[in-house]
């Protein structure tokens, strides 16, 4: 029909006229770093409150801390940052930091001892989720005036803990996101209703780090601008833009097109597809996250020691590592991630159906049917289905309850799941971060509501490990302490209802001309200021 043809013709013509042609930029500008990452977990950029992966990535590049990690030499452990040196008192309870002279916040204000003390006090007073990292040393909103002090003339900050802890433990905790030093004057100018600037800092920055925050658009992007006065020198990248791209395939296409410099959420198959492509390099870095399964000790059968051990022999560690987890997870059966003080690399368990059957028979168990909670994420679902398969070979029926992260977590925290398939990432780079949750549970009663402790969530009383963990955390001698953790883990492997399976390896796709990007290893977050093109 004619009218149709006319219409069609005008549409085609219209499209042709408006057709954009090839995009102008086949690669990103030389002074700009563009990263694709999942950043939908960011809910705040206030260091006293932020507790997610993507948030700590941003905050690490905006704020300095008293002690910090050198991205180019992570193995060195904590090194001076805004504090240039520190001393420990005789009784081991007070650490005094000497502040670095002449460092300025991005606002132009000097970084004073007062700012440092105020930042730590603020985190304690606000008592947001990560505050336990500081309050475990006995700081409370009531006593911070006495326990965290500063001397303006000497330009020093002192913190006094409630008892003697390993100094390395305290300092490691200060490298966590919550240890960020904030510009007091700028933040207090934006205080609303006595919130110590919490609302303002959610979407603004007031640090002395390499970058300042230009904008955070939720589920869209985070844009950072170089801080020209950064005390280690202005970073090479003027702008860093982190874009939220959820799909691995999409990230890969954008990287291949040159629209981004780095893709951070590529699955093993897309990594394999990128391998050998011109101008693209693949980096692998061991991270601190562990993949584990746990058994609820309220379950009458799962609480039998033989059943717990049998399950550990019903996991196809090798098969999973070599197939769908290839390159992104490595077998690791201990609760301290590799590279941590006291970490061990003994992985005694492997798939052994006969042995598992024997253990189950010994416990008098047959026809066991359990339900596992697992969140909707590709690798976890694949692990779950592999477990279904191997469990079935020993006569255990595994049903899956799949849901969003928060749904499953709600059930897990309420001690309602028979079994949980999940991941755990350390909160700060000290062995206590994991020991204190996997093997520490002072009150196993329902009323205790110690929902932050994995041992409590699985209703496991730890069989005496709680005391050993408490002893290890106050042991001042580094080598003795490391040995204590090795011993705890040896016992944990044999007695706990946890089967630790894998440690995460982060694989990124990177444009070859981008150099010097450190993801932070197992101990910290990403650093952009060392990047060059």
């Amino acid at each position, binding site marked *: 029909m004619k009218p149709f043809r006319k*219409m069609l013709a005008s549409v085609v013509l219209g499209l042709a006229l408006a057709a954009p042609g090839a995009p*102008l930029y086949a690669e990103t500008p030389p002074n700009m770093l563009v990263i694709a990452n999942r950043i939908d977990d960011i809910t705040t950029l206030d260091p006293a409150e932020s507790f997610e992966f993507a948030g700590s990535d941003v905050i690490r590049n905006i704020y300095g801390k008293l002690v910090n990690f050198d991205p180019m030499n992570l193995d060195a452990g904590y090194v001076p940052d805004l504090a240039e040196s520190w001393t420990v008192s005789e009784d081991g309870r007070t650490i005094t930091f000497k502040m670095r002279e002449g460092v300025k916040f991005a606002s132009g204000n000097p970084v004073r001892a007062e700012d440092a003390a105020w930042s730590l006090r603020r985190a304690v007073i606000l008592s947001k989720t990560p505050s336990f990292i500081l309050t475990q040393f006995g700081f409370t909103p009531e006593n911070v005036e006495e326990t965290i002090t500063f001397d303006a003339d000497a330009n020093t900050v002192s913190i006094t803990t409630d008892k003697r802890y390993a100094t390395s433990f305290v300092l490691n905790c200060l490298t966590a996101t919550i240890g960020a030093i904030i510009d007091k004057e700028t933040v207090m100018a934006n205080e609303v209703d006595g919130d110590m600037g919490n609302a303002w800092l959610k*979407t603004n920055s007031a640090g002395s780090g390499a970058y300042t925050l230009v904008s955070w*658009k939720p589920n869209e992007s985070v844009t950072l601008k170089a801080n020209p006065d950064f005390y280690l020198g202005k970073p090479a990248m003027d702008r860093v*833009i982190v874009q939220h791209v959820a799909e691995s*395939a999409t990230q890969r296409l954008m990287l291949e097109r040159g629209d981004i410099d780095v893709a951070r959420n590529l699955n093993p198959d897309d990594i394999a597809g990128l391998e050998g492509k011109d101008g693209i390099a693949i980096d692998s870095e061991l991270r601190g996250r562990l993949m584990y399964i746990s058994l609820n000790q309220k379950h009458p059968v799962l609480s039998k020691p033989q059943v717990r051990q049998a399950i550990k022999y019903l996991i196809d560690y090798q098969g999973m590592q070599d197939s769908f987890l290839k390159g992104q997870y490595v077998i690791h059966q201990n609760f301290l991630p590799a590279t941590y003080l006291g970490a061990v690399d003994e992985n005694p368990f492997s798939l052994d159906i006969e042995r598992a059957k024997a253990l189950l028979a010994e416990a008098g168990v047959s026809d066991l049917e359990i339900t596992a909670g697992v969140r909707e994420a590709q690798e976890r679902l694949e692990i779950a289905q592999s477990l279904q398969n191997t469990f079935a070979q020993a006569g255990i029926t595994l049903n899956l309850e799949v849901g*969003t992260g928060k749904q499953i977590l709600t059930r897990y925290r309420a001690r309602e799941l028979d079994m949980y398939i999940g991941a755990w990432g350390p909160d700060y780079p000290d062995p206590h971060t994991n020991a204190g949750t996997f093997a520490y549970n002072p009150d196993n009663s329902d009323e205790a509501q110690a929902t932050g402790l994995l041992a409590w969530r699985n209703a496991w009383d730890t069989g005496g490990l709680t005391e050993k963990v408490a002893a290890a955390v106050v042991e001042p001698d580094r080598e003795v302490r490391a040995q204590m953790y090795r011993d705890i883990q040896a016992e944990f492997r044999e007695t706990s209802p946890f089967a630790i399976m894998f440690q995460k390896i982060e694989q990124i796709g990177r444009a070859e001309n981008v150099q010097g990007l450190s993801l932070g290893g197992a101990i910290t977050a990403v650093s952009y200021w060392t990047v060059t093109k």
Partner: protein
Amino acid sequence: MAIAEDNPGGRRRSPPLLRHLRKGAATIGAVLITMLGLLFVTFLIGRVMPVDPVLSVVGERASKEVYDDAFRAMGLDKPVLVQFAYYLRDVLHFDFGTSLLTARPVSEDIARVFPATFELATLGTLFGVVLGVPLGVIAAVRRGSWVDQSARVVALIGYSMPIFWLGLVGLLIFYGILGWVGGPRRLDIFYQDIVEPRTGLLLLDSALQGEWGVFRNAFSHIILPASILGYYSMAYISRMTRSFMLEQLGAEYVITARVKGLPERRVIWRHAFGNIKVQLITVIALSYANLLEGAVLTETIFSWPGIGSYITTALLSADMAAVLGGTIVVGLIFVLLNIFSDLLYKFLDPRAK
């Protein structure tokens, strides 16, 4: 205004102005009731969901004290009806609360995400109508011909293809290999933050501000997702158009018109097509509303920051302030579109009087 209708019953009727006012008031009342019902059901959903909203605020590792503080601060210790009453009071003051996930006022979030969806859905529907209606008419007129058959095949394929698959393949071919279109998101990084958001519609804003580079870039980004949505909308609209047209073409009056020797074009477009307009508008409005509600999967594939993914993310995290706010907006649009098509019905369709 063509409301000078006859009055066969001869009953005394109130003056036209008063009648209009009454009708208008009734319509507004209906909208309000619908919205209230919508809000209440959504609110209940938030309470039924097996997700703990406090977790979204404090994270999974919070201590009991932190958790309890947040629980109280969110008013969750009060009865549901009291919470709903508080919420309504705030909404009446145009305060939709603060999103847990984005830490911003919900109204601000929606002002940001809705235009993105609006732009995409409008363009998609435009494609769907411009291609689907003529295709449907021709398919009906030439029933059984190759045009009909190919229109059918095209529509059926569109209807049967998983949209995320089509989206990914489209991205792979047109963006990854050919480089004809822009990638995911609304703009290349280089073009971001150039145009000041006035309406939030990038194409409109950039055109108004004379930033043609931005316009071209935005167009290159929107064209692929809009075409894919347009394809689906076209498939639906063309099938419905064909079906409506077939009905008309079989009717007595068309045969009479043909017998009278009226030109075929006139019979088809003036008579038959004229009679299906109303049904067609209902269909288009439905399809448009569906796209506006947010093509969640398309938005995911193309990293499109629209309202569909906003509500879904919020829902899965039990961020109820955001869900309620988004639901109000989407719901209002639905209701308004319906009223609009009802009104058209009354004006255009003689049979409905």
